[in-house]
């Protein structure tokens, strides 16, 4: 018997989310085993480990815990969908489309490299009156140093922002293992496409420093409940219009550094000699790839 959308509780890291669309895909990479001069195969070989992906679209009602993985993508995410669960998921994409007067809806993709275990259990849970964030209560912040929009020019005419985060990850399998020994994290980038009313062709060959931040608030919730920002390089401008539409500029900003900015609070020895041990204390240092001393 089929169940409906009402009967499938969704938990990520044991926390519920207000999901409106869900898609789970699990793939076994199977190739037919073909012998020379044969056109048909009677057996098949696995060519890769089992893996899957989940696509989620969900309302933001407060802090978005999935967004934390934009900067800390190396941490594994667990998921449970009506009793079917995985334990080693990694955020590979995250998108927000900021459109005026619309609810704040995020779209994310999580890839996992273990089997989807467990048994589906039909549930009956009633919704509660959760407050959902809306872009009409959002605040645009100008993070530029000049206070005049930086490369954007002026943030006061922004009518739409599409934020996207993409992370390239690949599993590393050892001979004889069905599960990856480790996950390799490749390039990741953030991009914002900003729709504004600044009509200009100003784009130097080196791009322009640009960024924008959106603070999400709710009139019945205290303070800023969530935010999203991109601070990088303006690398593309588009100017377009069509019959019955406004003349709009689209600004493309990309940011290749998507970590929480590290800071050093103290050094154990500021004048050490080679091969001496130095202890560095600070925040956001876990993803450090190299350290320069000068």
């Amino acid at each position, binding site marked *: 018997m089929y169940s409906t959308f009402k009967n499938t509780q969704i938990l990520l890291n044991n926390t519920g989310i207000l999901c409106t669309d869900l898609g789970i895909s699990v793939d076994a990479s199977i190739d037919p085993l073909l012998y020379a001069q044969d056109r048909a195969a009677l057996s098949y070989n696995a060519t890769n480990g089992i893996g899957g992906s989940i696509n989620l679209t969900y309302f933001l009602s407060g802090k978005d815990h999935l967004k934390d993985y934009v900067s800390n993508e190396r941490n594994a995410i667990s998921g449970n969908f009506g009793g079917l669960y995985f334990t080693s998921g990694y955020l590979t994409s995250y998108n927000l489309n900021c459109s005026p*007067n619309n609810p704040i809806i995020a779209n994310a993709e999580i890839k996992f490299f273990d089997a989807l275990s467990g048994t589906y259990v039909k549930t009956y849970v009633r919704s509660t*009156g959760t407050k959902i964030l809306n872009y*009409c209560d959002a605040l645009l912040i100008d993070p530029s140093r000049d206070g005049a929009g930086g490369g954007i020019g002026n943030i006061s005419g922004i*009518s739409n922002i599409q934020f996207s985060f993409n992370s390239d990850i690949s599993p590393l399998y050892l001979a004889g293992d069905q599960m990856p020994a480790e996950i390799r994290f490749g390039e990741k980038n953030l991009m914002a496409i900003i729709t504004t009313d600044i009509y200009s062709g100003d784009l130097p060959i080196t791009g322009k420093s640009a960024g924008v931040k959106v603070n999400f608030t709710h009139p019945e919730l205290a303070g800023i409940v969530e935010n999203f920002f991109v601070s990088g390089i303006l690398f593309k401008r588009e100017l377009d219009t069509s019959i019955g539409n*406004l003349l709009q500029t689209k600004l493309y900003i990309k940011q290749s550094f998507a970590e929480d900015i590290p800071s050093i609070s103290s050094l154990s020895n500021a004048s050490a000699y080679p091969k001496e041990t130095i202890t560095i204390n600070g925040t956001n240092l876990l993803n450090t790839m190299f350290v320069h001393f000068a």
Partner: protein
Amino acid sequence: MPIVWANNTFTLVNQTGVMATNASISQSNSLIPAYNIGKYWTVNQIPSDPIKSTFSLSYYPNVGKEPNYDILNTIRGLTDDVLYSGTRIVIAGVTGFNCYLRSYELQSAPNNLVKANVSYESFTPLSGQVSNRAFASTSDWGDLTVMSSSGDWEDLTVMSSSGDWGNIEDPVLENFDKIPHGWTTYISSSGNRLIAPTYDFNYKFTADWQPTYLIGQKFPTQVNFMAGTEEMSFVRDSFTHIQFSGEEVTGSFITGDWLIELFNYQLISTWANSGALIFDVSGAKIIDTKLVVDLNNFVRTATSIRRHY
């Protein structure tokens, strides 16, 4: 709050009284149910679009003082539409600011007064409450331009001095002889009237206003006039063949430069031209035609012409 009867209230368009037979305000938001996977019942009802208000009026136009016709002409002549901020409409004490003309319609039929229907859209909050008009004489209707704050509009009963209201005409006290009539509706060409027998005439203008919203704002930062369509239909007794590529209305349908003139009712008695609602149809093309034969009636054709702004 006491009941407010229609005869004790008023309808104002751009500070001018309108002889309305029906007036309404419809305001709505765009709440949608927010369901989520795994739960029954909705999480909440959430806004998915802005608030919109629609003002609709049916009225007898007055050729001497027809505010909607003036607004129509303003819109048809708009160049920098961002500078146009709409008009103010008051119906029974409830005020809409920055109202944009969505449609304007006139119907002229033989032996009948001309009737008009008009609708406006507003994308900003309304003000005021249902209230009686508190003015006994036209002198109590002052100059609304001196009313600077929206709060001045909210409760008209508090307006005790005539100085607060300028020279607004009380439509009820207007003479009906300024209403155009089927008898005084003419299709004219170069000043010659009655050049073709026309039984019914309908005019409709529709405007496409596009509000632009910014992130973090509930109300539009600007409203643009994107396009307008003017459509007129005539009931006559000769059939017009439709051309594939359209046909200029000033071609074979009728020769010369066309104007539709709706004179006031007074014209019939005094033949003095003291004002008219005039519609220029130059550049319009014939878009459809219909022939109707009914029992006990003459054969009629209805031809529509259209032009775009």
